[in-house]
């Protein structure tokens, strides 16, 4: 996704009361994260589960939170999602970079990229893939869900090879 849209996504969520952006970086969303750094709103953690734990504490403080990660980190986080986020029904938005979407992405991403939609489905986590046309509607959808106390996922496709 283009840098300008990534920045818009960040600023739109910020404007709509998402106060905390916690996670582990992924190049897929580097412009989103850089925009957050400019606004002094980013907390980088050592692992994704840690970010989810911190966001859980922030959400319980009634402060809306987003956790960003690559899909490798999503795979790390399965148990935390089931036994913390879903068990206690703690709302937060996950922003996940979809590595392995392109067939010629680096080999370590192939398998997780392939099973990612099935994993989300198995977890009953609602998700939407962001694109340059639907980003605002998708953000509204996510904001509405967390307002209702539900976690949800926004996905950014890795559409370039470096």
């Amino acid at each position, binding site marked *: 996704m283009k840098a300008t849209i990534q920045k818009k996504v960040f600023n739109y969520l910020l404007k709509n009361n998402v106060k*905390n952006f*916690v996670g582990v970086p992924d190049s897929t969303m580097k412009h989103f994260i850089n925009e957050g750094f400019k606004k002094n709103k980013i*907390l980088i*953690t*050592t*692992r994704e*589960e*840690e*970010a*989810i*734990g*911190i*966001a*859980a*504490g*922030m*959400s*319980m*403080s*009634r*402060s809306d*939170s987003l956790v960003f990660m690559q899909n490798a980190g999503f795979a790390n986080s399965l*148990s*935390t999602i*089931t*036994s*913390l986020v879903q*068990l*206690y*029904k*703690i709302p937060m938005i996950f922003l996940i970079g979809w590595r392995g979407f392109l067939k010629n992405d680096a080999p370590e991403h192939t398998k997780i990229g392939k099973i990612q939609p099935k994993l989300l489905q198995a977890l009953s986590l609602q998700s939407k893939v962001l694109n340059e046309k639907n980003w605002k509607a998708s953000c509204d959808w996510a904001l509405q869900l967390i307002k209702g106390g539900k976690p949800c996922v926004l996905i950014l496709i890795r559409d370039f090879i470096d």
Partner: protein
Amino acid sequence: MIRKEAISIISKKIGNQSIISANGFISRDLFEINDKNSNFYMIGSMGLASSIGLGLALKNPKKRFFIFDGDGNVLMNLGSLATIGATEPKNLVHIVFDNSLHESTGGQPTISKKIDIHSVAKTLKYKTYKATTKNELENILHRIKKMKGPILILIKISKSKTTSKRVDIDAIKIKQRFMESL
């Protein structure tokens, strides 16, 4: 000193302040000794009590948060101690009950006899204390009463002979009453 004795001493000293307690026997002991709305029993997600506590501490700077952790939990998420050291929450007190065992799963050893969690925390910019007796623990709790964190108190405990009952409150209820207590 066993964990229940340590928890009992701490409970008396800190009154109704918020506690985020790790899964397993730590939450079970706390639940049996001093159940209250401001206890967040983390019944799954091992390792994350300190992360949840950090999120709460950062968002509620006027309140103090106590984390009840174990050696197994800390070793599972050591990165959390680094993040706490780097973010320097002044209102966070991290209490680690160290028996060098995964007691809840049958008493298998952890590596905390070889790796000193107290020294690790010191390197990670915590103010650190170590207690092996009830007297030492009471003195430390007195000393840190007004001190700015992050503070880590490592309490050496021995294996308990009895097991506390399970936390039988529904997870959503645990969350709701904890949130209301904030």
